[in-house]
């Protein structure tokens, strides 16, 4: 399979995602430029973390209008796999490929730390290499990661199993103190209703080597590889 990682102006973790895929997981991966519409036959497109266009407007609001996003939206509508990490998640919400929105952390400050998430649904292309209920230790680093969505939308998402990751404590409980940013229902990652688009605030690409604090992020990438294999 082939991976494409988009570089928007202001993307920061694009090189890290590329490094994780290419150098650690030995995948065929390349960077896609925001001004190009060509996805270069990628089987999975990654929208990386960062501050696209400085995020001076709402996070992701500008990137959504990049030429490359027209192709990404098309690709997603045709069932292609799209993974949005952090700023990528924000862009996917702005582009309406995912429901809901990401708002300012409840602490009103940027947070960089390792948290624990629980895999709530392992029957998806993004989580199939994990077990349902499995706990993953991943880093977060964001100022706007508080997930919100209308109540009825949330209910439908919960019913359909679109909540793939939830912030939990060491015992797997989604408690308020385990919720780093105040997300509704402790939501850390959601899929669309056809389960081919996934956005998450934690950074799996920063959790692929024990030396860098753990490798639980590999679960997410392996799932995608497995589902396309």
């Amino acid at each position, binding site marked *: 399979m082939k991976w494409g990682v988009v570089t928007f*102006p202001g993307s920061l973790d694009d090189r890290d995602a590329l490094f994780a895929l290419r150098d650690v997981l030995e995948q065929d991966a390349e960077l896609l430029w925001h001004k190009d519409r060509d996805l270069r036959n990628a089987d999975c497109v990654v929208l990386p973390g960062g*501050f696209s266009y400085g995020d001076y407007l709402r996070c992701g609001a500008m990137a959504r209008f990049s030429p490359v996003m027209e192709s990404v939206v098309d690709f997603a509508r045709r069932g292609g796999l799209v993974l949005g990490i952090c700023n990528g998640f924000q862009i996917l919400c702005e582009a309406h490929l995912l429901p809901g929105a990401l708002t300012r952390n409840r602490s009103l400050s940027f947070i960089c730390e390792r948290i624990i998430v629980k895999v709530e649904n392992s029957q998806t292309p993004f989580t199939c290499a994990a077990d349902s209920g499995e706990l993953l230790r991943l880093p977060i680093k964001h100022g706007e990661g508080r997930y919100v969505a209308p109540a009825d939308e949330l209910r439908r998402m919960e019913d359909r199993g679109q909540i793939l990751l939830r912030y939990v404590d060491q015992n797997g409980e989604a408690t308020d103190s385990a919720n780093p940013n105040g997300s509704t229902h402790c939501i850390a990652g959601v899929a669309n209703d056809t389960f081919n688009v996934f956005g998450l605030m934690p950074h799996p690409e920063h959790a692929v080597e024990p030396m*860098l604090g753990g490798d639980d992020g590999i679960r997410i990438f392996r799932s995608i590889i497995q589902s396309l294999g």
Partner: protein
Amino acid sequence: MNVNPVALPGEPRVDLEQALAHGLSEQEFRLIERRLGRTPTFTELGVFSVMWSEHCSYKSSRRHLAKLPNKGPMVVSAAGENAGALDIGDGWLAVFKIESHNHPSFVEPYQGAATGVGGILRDIFAMGARPVASLNSLKFGSFANARTRYLLGGVVGGIGGYGNCVGVPTVGGEVMFDDAYNDNILVNAFCLGLARQGDLQSARAKGVGNPVLYVGSATGRDGIHGASLLASAEFDESSESKRPTVQVGDPFTQKLLIEACLEAIKTGAVVALQDMGAAGLTSSSAEMAARGKLGIELDLDRIPLREPNLTPYEMLLSESQERMLIVAEKGRERELIELFEKWDLQAVAVGQLTDDGHWRVSWRGHLVADIPVAALADEAPAYERPFAPPANPAPDCGAPPRHPAPAQALRCLMDSPNVGSKRWVYRQYDSIVQSNTVIEPGSDSAVLRIKGTRRALALAVDSNPRTCALDPYLGAIATTLEAARNLACAGARPIGITDCLNYGNPERPEVMWQFVRGVDGIRDAAQALDTPVVSGNVSFYNETRGRAIPPTPTIAMVGLLEDVECRRTQFFQRPGDVIVLLRTSIPALAASEYDALFGGGGRLNAIDLKKERALIEVLLTLAAQKLIGSAHDVADGGLAVALAECCFGPMGNLGAAVEVDVNGIDRPANLFGEGASSVILSVPPEAVAKVEQIVAGRGLEYRRIGTVLKEPWLRIDSDIQLEVAELRTIYEQALPRRIQGHG
């Protein structure tokens, strides 16, 4: 061309009074007149005032800085370029520098700190190095001062806001709170970059006729006289009105500039590159020309402007951020302009190099400045300012010491904002972007692996103003040694120093004396460690209403690990490991956090540089042979605090039982004293004999003081028995509870 520059309509008249208002002295004004053979125009006066400011010219410090050792087998670049560069092997160069942004951060904390980070990053990528890590050293007033919370929040927010958005991890630093900084905070920002050998970019102009390109943000009115009036004068009641001299940062544009400049350097079409930092277009153009002993012509009509109708004076002195000046290879301008366009950045040819050694500026068909380049750079005044120790050393007027029970003293120390966890601060910084951070903030040093090699770099930044206040020479030595120990505890050999020298008004002999003694101390320590000082920065005039800050030389040091697997953190690893104390002398309460809380001060101990070097070498040998589980430098709060910190593992608490009482050492000093260059090691039992062999005969005090416990309790002698969880809660809450206003 023998035409003198013209005065522009409506420009103020240039006379002595005008020169004084620009911060120049009468003597300096006369020197300018003599050098030009005429009275400068208003524009030229502005240019001289910034180029001859303390901030740009180092006129009070140059002669003393020359004493610092800056040579060594690894040194590729030291004085004279934008930053220092060391060859660290495997084809990589480490490029680094530290710089102050004190006054802007006091006037406007968020933007002041943010643009401090932005400026130091530009110095690094101007060298052709990709910025890979930032550190910062921050000094605030006490929490009793109402402004402290505002300044802390603004500065931390600004550092995070800028650093996080440009994708350079902030991996460490230090934060201190003391009344002495109530009216003059310190914000020192460090950046490390990595360059491939052969990609190092010079800032030396070459090639008459080569075009000069302006790239990045447009020029506005912000930051005018930041270098001369804000950074090179004391604070007073009018400082608030200097807020417009603080620049505003745009990290998004900076991120594009980093990528575009690094790509441009790879093309080989860039001859010289420099940040338009302090004194903006003026200093970058004059300094590049001066290094190449060439002249330069600038056409101000081509400068991209944020608003119309800027005067030449404003354009030349603007400190608008995110701008770089490039000397390009003639004929390759188009290629570079297109490259910058790809990154949505403007690049404009604004001038060219000449052979006559003049800095010549035209605007709307007029010549507005014509000054010999040398007069702006190398020939700027250099002063041998008088220096003398204070006539009457401050009397020791402290209240008589009170010595709480040791357990209570330990609780109080853990709760001190100077000792307690700085997690509230570093949690707001992205410390992991770029995927290199193998030891994160919270240990003695941060460590970054270098991808594709076995190597790693360790980073530490330290300062010790209380020690420096007692003895500016010993304090500077102690600071340099502390940074080296922090690196060695992580397993890294110190390879280079960059210093940020923060002092009061150098026109006062006692302040100048503190500075001179500080430089002497850094020199002696650097020589003893064989570690060159490859870059740095001086910040004078850190005083308000005649009250100077304590002398605060900040030392940032870079260390090299040949093998990343030899890295160590400060945290105990395994129950059953033997706890060892290594030290070079006897701890004292002088200048300690304990003294600040309870009194008891006294005198500083002498420092034996031979023993200090031996301690570093021993630590490096132990790390290289993988004989130890952890190593922690004893710093603020002394031995008892350091033992507690060793127990606060990132994955959970461990405990320790130790006997540290020694005959002949005062009990509070032994538990809480500082300044003894002490290190706590944890050693697997089977390695103890080997460790003892390595330590023996080096003149160091070596004692097995106890054992790492699985049960999370800290037991020190018979009088401290505390649950580690309790101490950790106090330690973690020390800062948040004060910021939330309950302190």
